[in-house]
């Protein structure tokens, strides 16, 4: 199956936040007590009951009094996903056939390591200590429905479709290179940015923490190669030198 994805275009987002509402409605997520931080951004951060949200950025503009950027934040469904690398529980985080990063709360052991390996600070934990994040509405996709956020978006700022086709569409619309097109082996959520990612509150070069990469590439193989090595060396030593037997007679002679 072709890789499916989301194309997010902040330029045509009007900040209505119906994506947040639709996501909550479909996934039956309860409301969160929130705080007013003097911005229309609400709630201020992702929560275990909020899988996507609109991040409000106000930047100076020469033409108008100011410029508002609305950036949809969510799990990016990385092609090379840090959360999946570090997860110790088989099946808790898995690759869906559409190429998204799915979650299975039944299999999650609540170790919270995925949160530290995520380049985008996305995973949250629910009351049971289990992972909570966007799963690209795998249940809707399975029934030929569009993910709730994209379905409800009134302006087409969130579009769901074949990832390659979305990239083609964006290029036709004048976006030469999308954010997430190549990063981390290709993100499932692509962003059409007019300005450098930093302005939208995104990392220029998102990456899995180096310690996690080192652990995965070096320490993991070293653990079983090392174990096999010392066991083999011990056996070899036994064959070559044999046991260090002490003889009673000798001992008495020496003593």
């Amino acid at each position, binding site marked *: 199956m072709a890789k499916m994805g989301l194309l997010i275009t902040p330029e045509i987002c009007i900040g209505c936040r119906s994506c947040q509402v639709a996501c909550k409605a479909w996934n039956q997520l309860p409301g969160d007590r929130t705080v007013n931080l003097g911005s229309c951004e609400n709630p201020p951060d992702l929560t275990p009951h909020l899988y996507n949200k609109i991040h409000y950025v106000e930047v100076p503009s020469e033409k108008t009094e100011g410029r508002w950027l609305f950036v949809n934040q969510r799990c990016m469904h990385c092609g090379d996903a840090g959360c999946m690398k570090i997860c110790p529980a088989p099946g808790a985080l898995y690759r869906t056939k559409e190429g998204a990063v799915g979650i299975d709360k039944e299999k999650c052991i609540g170790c919270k390591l995925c949160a530290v390996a995520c380049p985008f600070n996305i995973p949250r934990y629910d009351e049971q200590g289990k992972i909570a994040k966007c799963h690209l509405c795998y249940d809707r996709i399975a029934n030929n429905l569009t993910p709730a956020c994209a379905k409800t978006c009134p302006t087409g700022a969130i579009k769901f479709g074949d990832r390659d086709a979305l990239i083609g569409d964006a290029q036709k619309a004048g976006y030469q290179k999308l954010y997430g097109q190549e990063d981390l082996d290709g993100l499932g959520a692509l962003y059409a940015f007019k300005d450098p990612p930093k302005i939208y509150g995104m990392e220029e070069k998102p990456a899995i923490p180096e310690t996690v990469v080192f652990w995965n590439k070096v320490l993991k193989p070293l653990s079983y190669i090392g174990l096999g090595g010392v066991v083999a060396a011990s056996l070899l030593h036994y064959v070559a030198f044999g046991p260090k037997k002490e003889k009673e007679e000798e*001992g008495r002679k020496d003593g």
Partner: protein
Amino acid sequence: MDDMIRKANGFEILNHWALALSCILLSITGFAFLFQMKEVGSFFGGFPSMRLIHNWGGVVFSVSLLLSMFNWLKESITFDADDMGWIKVAGGYLSRKVKVPPMGKLNTGQKFFYLAILFAGIAISASGFVIWLLPANKQWVLVSHLIHNISFIVIILAIPVHMYLGTIANPGTLRIMISGTVPYWWAKKKHPKWVQDVETRKAGLKST
């Protein structure tokens, strides 16, 4: 029947068994987490319960490790010229012809082994507790995850060698872990300076 001499008291034997069993349990469950071994997970009643076993096994291990300092630390940080000699002949393990210098209660290799396990053990315990109890502090968890895995490699390299040397490589050693006593002649061969110490002390007690 050989004359026996006590090399380990009851506390040492219990302490060693607690360390050994928890360490093996933690290594098996640790490997299962590292490589997502489903069968091992099922054996421990699924991954969520295996996590509990791993965490509480870690409590047993770290407490035992702290207690072990009363048993073996002092001896393990005391080195003399004979220890240098031991290193030069590699403890007599790479050639049967060399003469191994007389050893105290622990030989040089045992001292190094204990220090390695002590340091790696403290590192793996402390980092494990951070991952378990302070998940919100991401920088700490990242560093701890790295330390946890590096010290695991130290332990997984050291333990099999320790098990080999304590069993088939040196017949007669394992009984220290079971009864705590060894034949007098055996101790005199392997740990002459220690036997001498014990004798001197005994003589001292008798004379007073």
